[in-house]
């Protein structure tokens, strides 16, 4: 690798990206300076790798380390096209996120098509391959090692305690490495087995040019010594697989280090000791590396970092040649605010007023806390604990709910499977995550005594034991229902997730009841009855009563629904999931029933409620669009109606095959498309825009006519109607707030503006139907109906005009009030539209208009006011937390600690259950403190100073005068120390995750005050790391246009030469068509004609596909020709034998077999490829390849399957052999 300079990198990467170019000027200025900073980070890291073989990106949380790393990977691949890369992410959700980000990065940020990083299709040139286990990884390596592999750390956490598990892992490995011999992985002890297994895996791994390890701090326990005692299986097997030098043994000559360069990523690379860095790099086989300053030739051994006798200054000097840390800041009131300044830390535990402790409400609370303290003290005094406890691992700190420590354990097999999937290879118990090996501590030292207390309290007082911290937290969090301010709560105990959520659900129920009573004061009795019924239902065990087993209400017209809203089963956690989602309760016009039968049913009265009258919009929204249209087209009203009916009926027949009824939504679409068609075909100036709308919004429209039956509705029920959006545009200010018009400038075409307009409309529509805003809409509908009774709601004659007007009026009223309501939710989404699309709906910009409703709908269903997460990550809940609205509160164990972005609408983080390392605490807070966060959007570059409540709020709730105070103090001290080590000199101190209760309580209970001065990185991106070659000739570019023109020319000639007549897809990089082949195997025109030009019988047909593609081979473009044979059962010996014989007899075609799991067969095809180059590829080569493939595939199809299938029918349906 040769070092490069910034300008050369700028030729290749634009971190601002094509997808961000449409954003507002102020935001663009922010992203522009930020993208330059990203580029500097990427170039410095690349040059460090070139110089030192190792680099560590330690930017603060939320600064886009992944993108910087992707930039580094791109540079490595561009200048070393054959480089092999392996990415290890901490867990599955982040592993998949990497692949998603890689695709986005290549599409939006990589500037050149080079066939190295970016293929001519705009995708990664080397296929990203996600491996779900080490077995999977071994398999994929054997198939093709020249791909980019994405693994997760948890895959290395093999559960090896049981002999059966070890046998299973051995069998798997022997399948991939038949030649290593059974003796190689035979050990009976866990430690020896993992050594043998890791060594065996090492044999399969080829040389890795760049290893990227995300959240590498997880490896800080190191590889361990020779015997590997006290080291996790994960670290040990990972190190062995990569070829750790400590395990090199002459008896195993093929075992060797496999990694050339290592790039680590973590915002928290060490806790309070630089030695953590060495431990991580040692696992990754780089412990022996030497690192030097850019180009000065002096390299220092990395091992110094772990040397007890080395001083902090020396260690820092070594770390400075390895570590890069960019420090983020916001400019508020013209002052630079680093994170410690725009974060407001509530260190003293309380919630009500800043930095006050939690107050005890009454003597009973104080007595209970004292009693629990006494009991805990007695337990900790036991010889098992020696007056010490693990930070964050006392059950009593979180709640007094019985813990899962009492729950019957899972089967060993299930437990092991869970261990591999879990975040740390640890079976889920009382706490998520792994901090201690001691079983008693894992389940909480005080769990037993606490359970006894709870039971005793319940027996005596017939109620749950109060918990002042829990009560204070619930009271504070419940304010979210009034304010809409989101909060992210981290707990340690799994049971606390449920307990906190349950209490908050009850608070939500009270809030929603107040809201309903305020909106419908005359219906208070009915509301009361509904809530009593809800309480009965939620107490009942008969869950099936409402979970979809009952038929829907009777007043519906068929059962077809608007996409994306028909598969929510509802729930009973709170009133919202019971009443507004799923089927809802029986015999009442619940929110769920109204949603399903009035809004989402295609035949329902409000099915067009969230549509826009597009033809009226195109015509400039005249008072009477039909009259205006007739005048515009110079038609009489009767003639217009007649033409519209014919066209509408033609569309309607295409849209639905139903024979009974005319669903309102389809009729609306039919008339809208018909009217747009007439305008598009006319000479009116709106014709071009009408054509665009027609094409985008109604792709099924063909212009077909038909005689509409007499019962088919008239056009005035679909054109000139009132919907929510037609009413919204009558309120200009409200419209700009919620559905801003797309500006005409900046070169955006009408089609692009239409695309964004419809995206915004569909997002507003989905939010209003599926989230908190829906409550307001529903209450208006009930007010209009005058009852909750099922039959009393709007009948078929209703048009939706009144409800639309009322909803818009309500939104206009809410606009003048603060708090959480429909307007606030929708406005927040409208303001952050680009951000939301980027983080939550990355496929939307490329989606067709007709797919938008489904995509938004799927992402926004199943909402809950309070989200809960433990064990594994729910992508949907995470996605919804990134939206304004529900869930307002998300309670999670450590599973959400790393990797997920939760910053878009949340500024409040509550460390309810404290965690034991500064890195974990920082990672948690980092979920809401990221680039483009709510706080950044509101405060950055604002002239006015920030109010305290506008900053990021970080809570450490605890009770003063309890042992919990000790752990908060310890953690805060370590947090401050860790921060100082990153930013200024600090003292190294031995670290012990245990607290000696007696010793600590004698020292001061005072908590350290947070640092308030601006932070400066101790490891900034220094200019010397940005210097290198700047030779533009080293930038490789592919001339895609010239290549496609060449293919175009070749294909046209080929069509003539071979008589290709039935054409399939014809795209710039892709062509397909049917080639005639005689029974004798002759291909082309001559095949079907004799020498006199007469036809010599019907030829067979063979579909051939030619495609330009990149294979990640040195930037070369290939043209691949393929032709399918059919589906074959290769488990049949005679089939394989016959295929082998035919392959040898028919010119040795290149056979390709792809497993089709659905059919339990292989899809077989003949394929060939050719380097496709402007200067050297000749037509004759191209023709020869296509002819050969067609001929060989046809022969094999004929001889194997005895058929000549329709070439355009899918393989699975027509070609089963």
């Amino acid at each position, binding site marked *: 690798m040769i070092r490069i300079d910034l300008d050369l990198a700028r030729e290749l990467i634009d971190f601002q990206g094509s997808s961000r170019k449409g954003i507002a000027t102020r935001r663009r200025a922010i992203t522009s300076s930020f993208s330059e900073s990203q580029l500097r980070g990427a170039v410095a890291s690349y040059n460090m790798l070139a110089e030192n073989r190792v680099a560590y990106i330690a930017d603060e949380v939320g600064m886009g380390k992944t993108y910087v790393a992707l930039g580094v990977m791109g540079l490595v691949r561009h200048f070393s096209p054959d480089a092999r890369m392996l990415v290890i992410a901490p867990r599955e959700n982040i592993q998949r996120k990497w692949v998603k980000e890689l695709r986005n990065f290549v599409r939006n940020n990589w500037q050149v098509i080079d066939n190295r990083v970016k293929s001519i299709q705009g995708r990664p040139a080397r296929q990203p391959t996600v491996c779900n286990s080490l077995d999977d990884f071994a398999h994929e390596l054997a198939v093709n090692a020249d791909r980019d592999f994405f693994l997760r750390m948890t895959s290395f956490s093999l559960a090896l305690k049981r002999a059966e598990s070890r046998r299973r892992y051995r069998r798997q490995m022997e399948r991939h490495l038949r030649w290593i011999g059974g003796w190689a992985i035979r050990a009976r002890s866990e430690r020896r087995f993992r050594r043998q297994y890791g060594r065996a895996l090492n044999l399969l791994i*080829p040389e890795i040019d760049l290893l990227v390890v995300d959240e590498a701090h997880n490896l800080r326990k190191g590889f361990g010594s020779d015997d590997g005692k006290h080291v996790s299986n994960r670290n040990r097997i990972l190190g062995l697989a990569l070829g750790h030098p400590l395990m090199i043994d002459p008896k195993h000559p093929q075992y060797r280090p496999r990694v050339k360069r290592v790039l680590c990523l973590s915002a928290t690379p060490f806790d309070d000791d630089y030695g953590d860095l060495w431990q991580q790099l040692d696992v990754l086989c780089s412990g022996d590396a030497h690192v030097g300053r850019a180009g000065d030739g002096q390299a220092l051994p990395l091992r110094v970092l772990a040397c007890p006798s080395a001083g902090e200054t020396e260690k820092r000097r070594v770390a400075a040649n390895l570590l890069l840390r960019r420090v983020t800041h916001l400019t508020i009131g013209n002052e630079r605010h680093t994170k410690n300044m725009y974060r407001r830390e509530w260190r003293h535990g309380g919630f009500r007023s800043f930095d006050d402790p939690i107050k005890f409400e009454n003597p009973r609370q104080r007595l209970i806390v004292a009693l629990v303290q006494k009991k805990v003290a007695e337990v900790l005094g036991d010889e098992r604990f020696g007056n010490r406890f693990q930070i964050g691992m006392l059950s009593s700190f979180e709640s007094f709910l019985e813990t899962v420590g009492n729950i019957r354990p899972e089967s060993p097999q299930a437990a092991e499977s869970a261990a591999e999937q879990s975040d740390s290879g640890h079976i889920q118990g009382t706490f998520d995550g792994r901090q201690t090996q001691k079983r008693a501590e894992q389940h909480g030292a005080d769990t037993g005594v606490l359970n006894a207390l709870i039971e005793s309290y319940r027996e005596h007082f017939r109620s749950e034991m109060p918990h002042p911290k829990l009560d204070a937290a619930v009271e504070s969090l419940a304010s979210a229902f009034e304010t809409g301010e989101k909060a992210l709560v981290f707990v340690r105990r799994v049971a606390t997730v449920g307990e906190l959520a349950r209490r908050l659900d009850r608070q939500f129920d009270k809030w929603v009841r107040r809201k309903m009573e305020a909106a419908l004061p005359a219906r208070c009795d009915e509301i009361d009855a509904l809530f009593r019924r809800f309480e009965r239902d939620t107490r009942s065990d008969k869950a099936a009563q409402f979970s979809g087993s009952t038929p829907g209400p009777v007043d519906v017209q068929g059962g077809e629904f608007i996409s994306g809203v028909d598969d929510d089963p509802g729930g009973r956690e709170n009133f919202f999931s019971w009443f507004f989602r799923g089927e809802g309760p029986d015999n009442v016009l619940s929110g769920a029933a109204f949603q399903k039968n009035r809004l989402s049913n295609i035949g329902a009265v409000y099915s067009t409620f969230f549509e826009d009258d597009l033809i009226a919009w195109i015509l400039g929204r005249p008072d009477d669009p039909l009259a205006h249209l007739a005048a515009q087209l110079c038609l009489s009203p009767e003639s217009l109606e007649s033409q519209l009916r014919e066209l509408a009926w033609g569309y309607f027949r295409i849209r639905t095959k139903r024979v009974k009824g005319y669903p309102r939504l389809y009729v609306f679409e039919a008339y809208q498309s018909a009217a747009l068609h007439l305008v598009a075909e006319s000479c009116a100036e709106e014709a071009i825009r009408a054509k665009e709308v027609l094409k985008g919004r109604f792709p099924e429209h063909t212009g077909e006519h038909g005689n509409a039956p007499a019962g088919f509705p008239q056009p005035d029920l679909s054109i000139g109607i009132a919907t929510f959006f037609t009413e919204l545009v009558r309120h200009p200010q409200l419209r700009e707030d919620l559905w801003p018009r797309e500006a005409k400038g900046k070169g955006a075409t009408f089609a692009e503006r239409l695309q964004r307009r419809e995206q915004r409309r569909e997002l507003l529509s989905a939010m209003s139907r599926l989230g908190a805003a829906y409550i307001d809409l529903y209450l208006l509908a009930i007010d209009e109906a005058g009852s909750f009774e099922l039959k009393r709601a709007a009948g078929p004659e209703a048009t939706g005009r009144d409800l639309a007007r009322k909803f818009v009026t309500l939104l206009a009223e809410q606009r003048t009030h603060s708090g959480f309501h429909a307007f606030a939710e929708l406005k927040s989404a409208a303001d952050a539209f680009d951000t939301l699309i980027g983080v939550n709906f990355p496929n939307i910009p490329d989606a067709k208009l007709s797919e938008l409703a489904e995509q938004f709908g799927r992402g926004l269903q199943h909402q809950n006011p309070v989200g809960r997460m433990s064990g594994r990550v729910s992508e949907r809940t995470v996605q919804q937390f990134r939206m304004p609205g529900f869930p307002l509160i998300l309670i999670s164990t450590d599973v959400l600690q790393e990797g997920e972005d939760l910053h878009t609408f949340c500024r409040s983080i509550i460390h309810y259950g404290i965690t034991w390392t500064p890195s974990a605490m920082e990672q948690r807070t980092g979920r809401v403190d990221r680039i483009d966060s709510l706080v950044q959007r509101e405060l950055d570059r604002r002239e006015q100073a920030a109010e305290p409540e506008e900053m990021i709020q970080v809570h450490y709730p605890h009770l003063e005068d309890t042992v919990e105070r000790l752990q908060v103090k310890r953690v805060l001290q370590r947090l401050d120390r860790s921060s100082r080590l990153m930013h200024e000199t600090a003292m190294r101190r031995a670290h012990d995750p245990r607290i000696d209760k007696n010793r600590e309580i004698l020292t001061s209970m005072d908590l350290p005050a947070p640092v308030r001065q601006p932070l400066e990185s101790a490891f900034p991106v220094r200019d010397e790391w940005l210097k290198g070659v700047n030779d533009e000739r080293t930038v490789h570019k592919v001339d895609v246009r010239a290549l496609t023109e060449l293919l175009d020319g070749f294909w046209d000639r080929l069509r003539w030469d071979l008589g290709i007549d039935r054409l399939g897809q014809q795209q710039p990089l892709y062509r397909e068509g049917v080639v005639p082949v005689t029974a004798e195997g002759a291909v082309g025109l001559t095949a079907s004609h004799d020498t006199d030009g007469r036809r010599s019988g019907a030829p067979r047909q063979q579909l051939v596909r030619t495609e330009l593609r990149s294979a990640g081979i040195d930037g070369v473009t290939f043209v691949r020709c393929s032709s399918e044979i059919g589906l074959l059962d290769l488990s049949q*010996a005679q089939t*394989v034998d016959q295929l*082998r014989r035919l392959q040898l007899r028919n010119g040795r075609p290149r056979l390709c077999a792809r*497993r089709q799991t659905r059919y339990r067969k*292989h899809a077989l095809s003949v394929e060939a490829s050719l*380097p496709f180059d402007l200067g050297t590829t000749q037509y004759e080569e191209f023709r020869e390849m296509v002819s050969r493939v067609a001929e060989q595939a046809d022969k094999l199809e004929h001889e194997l399957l005895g058929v000549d299938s329709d070439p355009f029918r899918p393989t699975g349906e027509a070609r089963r052999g």
Partner: protein
Amino acid sequence: MVELRAMLEKLRSEQGIEWQEDGAEIKIRMKIASRRQRIRVRREGSEFVFSTGVHAPDAMDGGAEHRRRLAIRAWTRNSKTELVNFMLDETDHLVGEIRHPADHLDAEELAIYLRVLASDGDRFEYVLTGKDKH
């Protein structure tokens, strides 16, 4: 073949590949890191056939069933890669092949074919046998 020899000679001087004629065939030795891979070139009709050995039948265990599994493995591998055709030949050798019209082969294509054939063949051989025989 004359032009092919000239192109190989150029590759010898530029990339250090070794080659020699053996009757109607040309034998090429390629270095891949610490391993080697041999490639043969012969002319069949209007085509050049570049081939490399991967797995010899005498090293196989399991007889016919094993050979079937190997054939499927080769065809599966073909579907995930470009250029090289892995298959079992008439003598049950697992081989990798690339064919190209002899009259239209140029130096760039030759260099790509040799490199891809050698590295893919060597990797497949290693995965299957752990050895470096071919």
